[in-house]
C-alpha cells in the first residue's frame, strides 16, 4: 500500500448520492478493506457534467466551482464513475479556461481517480480474493475506456474472482445509450441502444452484467425493467463486495 495516499476523499457522484447510495458504500467498504482511511465531505453535490454536456457552460461552471472548493485539500480523490472522472480531468480545463480557478481545476484533474484506475495504480488488483461461481459480462463505460484510457483494469479485477467466468461481447466497448441528457432528450433512441446492449449480454447467457459507471447502470437497469429482463446489473464495487464477501 502506498502510505502517502492512505487517506482517501470519497467522490460520490450525484447519481450515487441521490439514487444508488449502496454503490458509494460498496466502494467505501472496498477501500477500507484494502486498509485506507476514507473521508466523505457532504458539501459535494455534482461535478457539473449534466449542464456541461447540455452546452450550458455557465451553469456547469457554478456547480463545478463548488466541487473544486470541496476537493481543494485532499491529496487523492476516488470515485465510482469513469464518466464523472473524465469530466473533471478532461473537461474542467475547457470549462475553467482563462479562469482564475484554472490551476485548481488542472490540479484536481490529476488527483481524481476512477475506482478501478486507483486500484491499478495502487497495485490492489492482486489483493482481490474471492470465490463466486457465475457467468459475468462486463459493460465497459465508454468514458472510462476512451476518455480516461482505462483499458482492462476492471476486467482484471473480475478475473481475480475464483469460479467467475467472463463472457465478453466482440467489438468493445459499445455505448449503452445513456449519455446523460441525451437519454432524456432522445429517450427512444437511448432506449433502443440500451436494449441492443442488454440483448448482446443476454444472448451470451450471462448471469450478471457488471459495469463501472452509475450512469450506464441506471440506464440499463431502467431498460431491463421495461423489457422484463431479469439479469442483475451491478456496479463493479457492488459485485466485488458480494464476491469477496466483505461486510
Amino acid at each position: 500500500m502506498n502510505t502517502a495516499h492512505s487517506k482517501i476523499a470519497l467522490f460520490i457522484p450525484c447519481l450515487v448520492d441521490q439514487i444508488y447510495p449502496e454503490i458509494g458504500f460498496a466502494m467505501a467498504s472496498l477501500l477500507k478493506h484494502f486498509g485506507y482511511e476514507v473521508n466523505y465531505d457532504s458539501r459535494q453535490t455534482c461535478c457539473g457534467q449534466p449542464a456541461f454536456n447540455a452546452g450550458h457552460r455557465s451553469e456547469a461552471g457554478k456547480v463545478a466551482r463548488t466541487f473544486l472548493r470541496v476537493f481543494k485539500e485532499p491529496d487523492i480523490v476516488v470515485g465510482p464513475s469513469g464518466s464523472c472522472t473524465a469530466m473533471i480531468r478532461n473537461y474542467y480545463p475547457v470549462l475553467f479556461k482563462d479562469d482564475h480557478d484554472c490551476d485548481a481545476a488542472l490540479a484536481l484533474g490529476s488527483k481524481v481517480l476512477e475506482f478501478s484506475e486507483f486500484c491499478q495504480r495502487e497495485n490492489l488488483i492482486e489483493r482481490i480474493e474471492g470465490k463466486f461461481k457465475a457467468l459475468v459480462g462486463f459493460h465497459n463505460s465508454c468514458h472510462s475506456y476512451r476518455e480516461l484510457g482505462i483499458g482492462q483494469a476492471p476486467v482484471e479485477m473480475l478475473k481475480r474472482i475464483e469460479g467467475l467466468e467472463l463472457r465478453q461481447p466482440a467489438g468493445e466497448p459499445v455505448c449503452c445509450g445513456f449519455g446523460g441528457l441525451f437519454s432524456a432528450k432522445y429517450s427512444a433512441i437511448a432506449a433502443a441502444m440500451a436494449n441492443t446492449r442488454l440483448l448482446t449480454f443476454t444472448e451470451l447467457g450471462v448471469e450478471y452484467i457488471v459495469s463501472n459507471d452509475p450512469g450506464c447502470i441506471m440506464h440499463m437497469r431502467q431498460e431491463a425493467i421495461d423489457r422484463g429482463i431479469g439479469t442483475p446489473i451491478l456496479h463493479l464495487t457492488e459485485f466485488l463486495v458480494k464476491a469477496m464477501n466483505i461486510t
Partner: protein
Amino acid sequence: MSNYSSFIRRSEEKAEDRGHLLKILKAVSTHDSKVEAMKVSQFRDWASARVQAEGIKNHVLENLPELLEQFEEKISARGAEVFWARTTGEAQTHFLDICRQHNAHKVIKSKSMTTEEILLNETIESAGMKVWESDLGEMIVQLAGEKPYHIVTPAMHKSTAEISELFHEKLGTPMTDSAEELTMAARSYLRDAYITADIGVTGANFLIAGEGAIILTENEGNARLTMSCPPVHVVIAGIEKLLPSLEALPLFLPLLATSGTGQQITCYNSIIRGPRQAGEPDGPEKLYIILLDNGRSDLYSSRRFRESLRCIRCGACLNACPVYRTIGGHTYQTTYQGPIGSVITPHLKPMKEWQHLSFASSLCAACTSVCPVKIDLHTLLLENRSEAYSDHATGFLWRVGLKFWAYMFGSRSRLNFFRTIGWIKLPFIRPFIPRGLRKRIPVIPSKSFSNLWSSHERS
C-alpha cells in the same frame, strides 16, 4: 414540421424497428472486422499513420488560400477551367451555364456527396435534362427516389431482395437473389448512358495542389467511365479536398480505403491532370472544376471548428456510431449523416434549424477513436451544444430546467431541501411525465448517500 420534430418522429420509428437494426448491425459488423484486420495487416502502425495524416491536413488548412490558388494555376495551365462557387446557388448556376454552352441534354454522374449537397440532380431535372447515377448504390437510391443512406455506402439499407424488386419494377429485369445478376442488369442499363451522355459529372476524393490534379478513388470503374466517355467532364468539389502534392497519396489512398471499406486500396484510382491534351487519343475535350465553399470558409475561420475540414469523407464515424446504427442515415435528413454530419451541418446550414443534431449523440467517443485524420468529433459536438445555447437556439424548457438544476446543485442544503420535496412529490408527478422519459427515471430511495453516511459513520 420542423427539422427537429421530424428527426424525433423518424428516430422513434427506427428505434422500434428491430429488422432495420439487425440489417445495419450485420452490414456494420462485417465491415468492422474487415477494417480492423486491414489496419493491422496494411499499416505497421495505424496510430502514427493517423498522426501523419492529421499533420498533412493541418498543413493544408494552414495554407488553404495559397494551395487553392496553386491548384487553380496548375490545372488551368493544362486546359481545365476553374469556377469558384460561394453558395449552392452559385454552383448550380455555373453548372447550368456549362450545360447550356455545350447544349447538353444528358448527364451521367459518379458518386459525389458534394453534388448531393448542391442538389445537383434536382437542378438538372428541373432544367429539363436527364441524369443517371452510375455508382451502383447511388443508382439504386436514385431509382427508389431516395437520398443516400450513408456517405460511402448509399444503399446499405437495401437488401438484395429489395433491390431485385426495385429493378424488376423500374427496369423490367427478372426477379433474382443473385447480387451478380443485379449488377449485370445495372451494367447494361448504364452502358448506353455512358456512350450517349453529353456531360460526365464526378466529385473529387482529393485535389492535388502541387501538380494540379484530381484524384478519384472507386471500386466499380464507373467514375473512370463517367469522366472519360462524355466529351465534357465537370468536377464538383469542396475547397477542403486539397492535399499538398502527389507525395501524400501513398498515405491517403490506403488510409481512405482502409477506413472507408476495409480495403488495402480501392480497385480503381485515377489521377486527372486536365482535359485531353494535343496528340492524346481519348479523354474529355473539356474539363471544368467547380470549387464549392458553401459555408466551409466559416468553419475555416473558426479556430475551434477548422479541424472538421480535415475530413476525407471515409464514413468511419458513421459506422462506429451507435446512434447512426440505431436510427439509420435517412433520419438525419442531411447530406452528411452521423457524427461528422452532426458536427458540420449546424455550421453549413442555419444553427437554429440543425442544432438538435449536436445533441443526438451519447458522446461515447467511438467516432473520435476511429477517425483517420483525428478529428475530435465528440468534443466538437460539445462545442456545438455550447454554441447553440449561447445563440439561444435551444429549447426554453431545457434552459429553465438547467438553470434550476444549477441552483439546486449549488449547495448541499438546497439539494437536500429540493430532494425532500421531490421525493414526496415524485410519485404524484410521475404519471404526468411522458412515458418515454418516465421509463428512464428510477425509483428514488428515501435517503441519499449523504443522509445515510453520517448515521453510518456514527454507528
